[in-house]
């Protein structure tokens, strides 16, 4: 009797090595310490960017008298210079316009395409899906030279419209795949019911499928917005005049002048250019994570 009673207690108090693994110091060394290092290294450039944009030039160039990791007299001079002495607001506006335009265009195109491939099943629909997936694997670095000649042919060179039309080439494949995955998760019976009740296909798409796919649409939308905000090589190759440039290109080509770099203004420009996506991101973190992993998984 005592033996059997003692045994469970012994199991509970002297557990196998899994509990030892979880115990205090070891857990600290194996999990929290490396995690801390990762977070520190991954975030340091942003900290450095932020702190540089508010430092007066005297502090930026003098590490002997000022601790470089902190600001003793913060200043808004760099941001003021950026907003009032350069075309920065214009660049922000252009970038926003291009990002919203190309996101809208690719959302419409990819919703329709995903619906056709996943719901209006037809012979060859898997191959169309595969073709669109393969388009995702064609990197912009291969395309920008011939695309530049195409853009010139269309008379769109140096126009933001060129970017709005070209960005869907990498947004549509991504969004289509994401939305195919979402449409797959919506029960087909719902649509069958609607068909039996006499709804047309377009009514089904508008009234049933789309409302159920809203999380997928949001994921695809914010992802496209971020990708087009961050795009660089096409914007660099197709836009020449200073006023029409997008933020990433403009900072690199218009603000980097001469031999002495104005690091304060450069970092302030980078910070302001990153803020919209960072804010957007913080509002929709879960959608980002799900779209990122969803696109990779399927």
């Amino acid at each position, binding site marked *: 009797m005592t033996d059997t009673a003692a045994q469970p207690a012994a199991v509970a108090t002297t557990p196998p090595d899994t509990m030892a693994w979880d115990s205090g110091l070891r857990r600290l060394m194996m999990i929290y310490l490396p995690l801390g290092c990762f977070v520190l290294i991954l975030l340091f450039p942003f900290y450095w960017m932020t702190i540089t944009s508010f430092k007066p030039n005297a502090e930026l160039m003098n590490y002997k008298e000022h601790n470089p990791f902190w600001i003793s007299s913060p200043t808004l001079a760099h941001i003021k210079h950026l907003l009032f002495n350069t075309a920065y607001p214009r660049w922000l506006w252009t970038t926003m316009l291009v990002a919203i335009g190309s996101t809208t265009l690719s959302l419409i195109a990819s919703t329709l395409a995903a619906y056709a491939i996943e719901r209006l099943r037809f012979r060859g629909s898997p191959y169309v899906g595969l073709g669109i997936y393969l388009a995702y694997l064609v990197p912009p670095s291969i*395309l920008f030279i011939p695309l530049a000649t195409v853009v010139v042919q269309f008379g769109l060179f140096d126009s933001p419209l060129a970017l709005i039309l070209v960005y869907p080439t990498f947004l549509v494949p991504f969004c289509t795949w994401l939305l195919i995955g979402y449409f797959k998760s919506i029960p087909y019976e719902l649509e069958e019911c609607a068909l039996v009740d006499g709804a047309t296909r377009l009514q089904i798409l508008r009234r049933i499928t789309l409302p159920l796919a809203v999380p997928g649409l949001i994921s695809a939308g914010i992802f496209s917005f971020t990708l087009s905000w961050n795009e660089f090589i096409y914007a660099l190759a197709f836009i020449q005049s200073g006023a029409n440039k997008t933020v990433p290109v403009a900072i690199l080509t218009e603000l980097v002048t001469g031999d002495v770099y104005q690091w304060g203004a450069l970092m302030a420009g980078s910070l302001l250019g990153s803020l919209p996506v960072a804010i957007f991101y913080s509002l929709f973190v879960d959608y980002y994570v799900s779209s990122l992993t969803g696109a990779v*998984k399927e």
Partner: protein
Amino acid sequence: MSVTTLPTLALARRQPSWLVRLFDYKPFLIVMCLAPAIGLLAVFLTYPLGLGIWLAFTDTTIGRKGDFVGFENFQYLLTDPLWWNAVFYSVVYTGIATFGKFALGFWLALLLNNHFPFKSLLRAIILMPWIVPTVLSALAFWWIYDPQFSIISYLLVDVLHWRTTNIDFLGSPWPARFSLIAANIWRGIPFVAISLLAGLQTISPSLYEAAMLDGATAWQRFRYITFPMMMPILAIVMTFSIIFTFTDFQLVYAITRGGPGNSTHLLATLAFQRGIAGGELGEGAAIAVSMIPFLVFATLFSYFGLARRKWQQGESND
């Protein structure tokens, strides 16, 4: 009630306009739905891809329509030390950066797979390098790598006293190459970690329980359960990563523009320098086309990774 509603419904159904009926005709609807996506991709992706391959066989320059010159561009590239240099650095860059991203990213994913407070907040913070425009974070790295005011040099020289001189990050070939690789790894870790974390969370805990009952050590559990189960998703994420690292442009263009002495040119930056900045469209296109064999290889790798995953999950290939 039902008697009164039926006729109205029937009325509504009897007279739909021809437009509504056209849009309900399935083949027409399929064509209409696919048209925008396929049209955009055909005009701005497939056509330029073909045009790029054609341009690579011509001597087109900006403003002058070129003539067909056969393999002349490629023959020239084969004798061009700068092209060989770019191929060499592209391979080194892709190799080391991919290895670094996956080693550190996998480690980070394993760390994040544990239970601890503020986990979702941490996961959100970790994705930041991947969300922010690459060029803008590259500028921050450029400033961190500054020859005079580098914060890393400051740490090593003035705080830790490990060195007596500042590190010349971007002034000579090999340090510049490794500085760029470090920046690329920094940017790539979050994507790898979060994708792999999603894969880790799909592994059934019962496998680990069974292994622990059989007395498997932590290393054995990783080697014989985690790693094989992660193989398929690793293959896919790695293919994406290899393709986009090999064709990387932004980071190198923002930080070194191929310098010092053309030592850090990737194929993409070399293609830009020759094709757009130099105006030799034909030659630039040839450099871009020379990346294709490598990408085809990576895509096949992805396809077989995908096929293997379905087979492992016991699903049929659809």
